[in-house]
């Protein structure tokens, strides 16, 4: 059974901080990803100050105004307005808040669950490992989208529920990676040394093991955050995610699909924003993996 979750050799050598910094600055993908991500985070934080309009304020007499680069567009609504006359730029800016909130919250919740399970299984082995492996395989047998759809359809979709559902479902990769990484770290000399000096189990796990598997945790975290953002968009697109009038990018795409033949910017703008954010996070994840890998792999 446990073979299923064995993910091949995992590098455990940790790159010293000085070399990490040097490598990181030289890694183009990581830098571009980080810059784009930082800009989106800034936009999300500053949305209330930089948005030209209230993202919820509708004006039915000014519907479907095209963006400024069309002849009928104006700087009053740089990205135009949607089918209820709401300012599209403001909604796109506020949408960053929701996507990031979901990405980060889901990452934290699923990361905590997955890391705890993975560390316990990898460190203690034996029965605990068997039990955790069983839980992981059980979880892997459930298709995430299907379960999320069913739960949201039953309980109703609010931002909180979407975060909770995705957080409780998406911890599997954390657990798998943490388990195999921990298995390799636990037999290394410094862990033995700590044990010999009489440190308690919890202290060894938190102070010796965890810092040494952290690079993997960060890489998995970025991948999961990006996938959570996409899943939320998918759920919202199907009408079962975040509910109106919240300006979620997935929801904006869903609402725009009736207009795609003639007002394609309604789909293109949130679609591009979503693609950019996910691309940036994935570039960061890839970059971090390259930078934290031992010399022989980069």
């Amino acid at each position, binding site marked *: 059974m446990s073979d299923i979750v064995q993910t091949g050799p995992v590098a455990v050598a940790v790159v010293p901080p000085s070399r990490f910094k040097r490598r990181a600055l030289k890694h183009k993908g990581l830098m571009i990803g980080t810059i784009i991500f930082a800009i989106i985070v800034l936009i999300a934080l500053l949305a209330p100050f930089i948005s030209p309009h209230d993202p*919820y*304020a*509708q004006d*039915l*007499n000014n*519907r*479907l105004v*095209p963006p400024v680069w*069309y*002849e*009928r*567009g104006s700087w009053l609504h740089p990205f135009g307005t949607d*089918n*209820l006359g*709401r300012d599209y730029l403001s909604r796109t800016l506020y949408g960053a808040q929701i996507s990031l909130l979901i990405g980060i919250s889901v990452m934290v919740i699923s990361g905590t669950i997955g890391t705890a399970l993975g560390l316990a299984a990898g460190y203690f082995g034996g029965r605990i490992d068997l039990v955790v492996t069983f839980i992981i395989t059980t979880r892997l047998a459930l298709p995430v989208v299907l379960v999320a759809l069913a739960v949201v*359809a039953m309980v*109703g979709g*609010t931002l909180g529920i979407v975060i909770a559902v995705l957080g409780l479902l998406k911890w599997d990769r954390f657990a798998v990676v943490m388990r195999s990484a921990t298995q390799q770290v636990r037999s290394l000399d410094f862990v033995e040394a700590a044990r010999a000096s009489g440190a308690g189990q919890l202290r060894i796990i938190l102070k010796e093991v965890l810092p040494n598997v952290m690079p993997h945790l960060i890489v998995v975290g970025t991948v999961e955050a990006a996938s959570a953002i996409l899943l939320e968009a998918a759920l919202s697109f199907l*009408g079962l995610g975040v*509910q*109106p*009038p919240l300006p979620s990018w997935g929801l904006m795409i869903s*609402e725009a*699909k*009736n*207009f*795609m*033949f*003639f*007002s394609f910017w309604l789909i293109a703008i949130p679609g591009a924003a979503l693609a950019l954010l996910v691309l940036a996070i994935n570039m960061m994840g890839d970059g971090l993996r390259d930078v934290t890998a031992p010399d022989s792999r980069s």
Partner: protein
Amino acid sequence: MIFSSTRRVFGMILGIALAAGLAAPAEAQKRQNTIRFAYDQVPENVDPFFNNVRIGVIIAHQVWDTLIYRDPRTNEYKGQLATAWRWIDDKTLELDLRRGVKFHNGVEFSADDVVYTLNFVANPANRSTTQSNVNWIDRVEKIDSHKVRIITKRPFPAAIEYLAGPIVIHPAAYYEQVGPKGMNEKPVGSGPYRVVEHQIGRSITLQRNPDYFRDGPKPQPQIERIVIRFIPDRQTQVAEMLSGGLDFVMNIAPDQAQQMRAVPTLQIVSGGTMRIVFLNFATTERSPAPQLRDLRVRRAIAHAIDRQTMARQLVGEGSQIINAICFPAQFGCDASQVPVYDYNPAKAKELLAEAGFPNGFDIDLHSYRERNQAEAMINYLRAVGIRATLRFGQYAAMREQIRSNRAGMAHQTWGSFSINDVSASTPVYYKGLDDDISRDPKVIELLERGDSVTDPQQRIAAYREAHKLIMEQVYSVPLYNLVTFYAAARDLEFAAYPDELPRFWEMRWK
């Protein structure tokens, strides 16, 4: 305006592309005298008594005939399978039947067909889908080969309207032999079109009935074939329409219809329909939203929504504001004495404060169609402090939540089965039946009276009083009627009617 010219340019480019590559097949359709029509719902059974979807009604009137026909232009009743009718007493309707009518299988139509069909569907054990369409019939008796009497359970003045709407006549011997299931697989009626192929769930092909009787209210059909395909996604329908793969579709979104006007191979026709839209409130003790039990809150909601702007901007040309829960042309839909609540957000806020909600409250809004209209209402409510969350789902799911007291506020629409009598609309929601979530005994009593007295003046008076009471208590916010947009090949000649029933038998090529 400059933009609309960009749009026109786009439309022209699209049009040139279509003209070059795709207009040829459309021309071929004209030569082959075939209309290719698509619809997004699939009837569970084509037998008109065993489905409750619009496409079922549309097919019913092409393939079958009713006893009486209502002229959609004048609202005048004309004889179809019946030639004359009279009330013998307030529960007995006698009908003379037309001679020389043949069903598609060659069998001559007679009184036996009416007797068997109506007695079969009126029997609750046979589980016809919409019981309210037939449960007023007690029994049907044959007087002679072309004369029958329908005996109703209670006085039921709207009977004529039902006989002109959902109640079609099947050939008795065939129906007895195959039942509703066989009728679905191989439908046989007497109407202007006969079914030549039914691929269940995919398509139905209709062919002109050459033996259709001549002196009836439906003219002899001109179009040879109608191919009806079930395409669930409206965007796919539009794409097929743009590429010349279809000749006729209905229920296009208003915005899209506006934009499709620029395509030179198409014509867009719109028509107001009988389908009314309203916001309904659960006000009983078991209401899941107790705030709604306060009249001031309900009045606040009525003042918060700008119906006029919604009708103009979201529904489109042809949409009218309604002030009572019924379609204005229905008999008994008298809104002359109802209080009207104007759009006044300031007053709404005041009323909410008075009711003890100066900071508003949270509530769910249940909805199943026209999602953009539900969202617009949510934004209007938000502007006065009521934070509504959209609960959007299938109609069956929403109906279940309403009936089990789990929905406080519902965005409803109702098409009355195209029946032009108020007994088909208001009582459905306020006469104490399953969908009644306010259950006011006075309203129930008034509607009961309106549905059963025979004197038209007394009926109108009872309904008028009921509508007044419903609106004084604001059990709902009446909004507007919907508009159906049809897109068709440019050279097809057709008319749009409020009953949302395309009449293929009177269509022709220009």
